[in-house]
């Protein structure tokens, strides 16, 4: 019993430890360079396992592309040049943050359009509701209401 509890705890603990798949040992000029590299491979998508970044993916191609990014950074080129290297070969798909251009307008503006549409809808509904609120009862209606209430009391 005690053992199984311990085993469970162990499993839970392991689950909490972040496991990095990008395990290559790299040397950098300084921390800035290292941070640039780490940020880049976090932001670029692996094309083999499409929901993982280059940093997360264990795919062979991801390893090769990490090498490419590393070489580019080490050779003193800018982040933009590294990104451009990959976009030229694999398209905007490698970017987790796609650029704003006509084909991505829907992607960027869609949520705001949906939000605006929702707000307009709610506003028109509440206005309509306010407009159709039942008016005051007329004298005759009040009389009839009293009669009906009187009926039920009997």
């Amino acid at each position: 019993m005690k053992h199984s509890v311990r085993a469970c705890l162990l499993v839970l603990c392991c689950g909490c430890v972040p496991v990095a798949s990008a395990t290559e040992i790299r040397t950098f000029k300084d921390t800035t360079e290292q941070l640039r590299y780490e940020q880049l491979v976090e932001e670029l998508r692996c094309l083999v396992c499409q929901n993982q970044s280059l940093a997360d993916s264990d795919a062979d191609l991801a390893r090769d592309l990490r090498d490419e990014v590393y070489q580019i950074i080490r050779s003193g080129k800018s982040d933009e040049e590294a990104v451009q290297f990959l976009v030229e070969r694999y398209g905007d798909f490698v970017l987790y943050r796609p650029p704003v251009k006509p084909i991505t307008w829907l992607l960027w503006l869609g949520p705001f359009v949906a939000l605006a549409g929702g707000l307009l809808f709610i506003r028109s509904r509440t206005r309509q509701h306010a407009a159709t609120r039942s008016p005051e009862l007329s004298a005759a209606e009040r009389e009839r209401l009293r009669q009906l209430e009187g009926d039920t009391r009997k």
Partner: protein
Amino acid sequence: MRLTFLIPLVVFVLMVVLLGVGLTLNPREVPSPFIGKPAPAFSVPQLHAPAEALSSEVFRGQVSLLNVWASWCVSCRQEHPLLVELAKTSRVPIYGLNYKDERNAALEWLARLGNPYRSSAFDADGRVGIDWGVYGVPETFVIDRKGIIRHKFTGPLTREAIDGILLPLVQQLEGEPG
């Protein structure tokens, strides 16, 4: 006017249709940025003749195919008989890019299953593959007379893809002036 209560339902149905269509799309088919661009240059040893180079110059002056393959790739094996058949029945030359493979394994694979390629470039470290934006072997590029990439198939070729898209495209490109 009374039907405004249906608006959420209509929006919901539209969403279902949109997402339903999305589900039928193939997420592997990423549009290639190379369509309409010149074939990236390379010059690497040939698979069968390590001392001789195969370069991207071969694509000039003729409509040709470049098929990216490897002996470790299961889907390549699946499409291979179709390539062998295509090499026999069509005049269009097929070049191979042997991607991140071992030379002996690749040679043995071709000896056993047939060799549809005029020649295969031996891309041991996958650098040519990266320059061509290869991410899922097998891939097949259609290149026109001017050395411009006109179409790319990602994943194994099927008979439908060959008869329906590839051969008509090759025929159309052969009609274009060089």
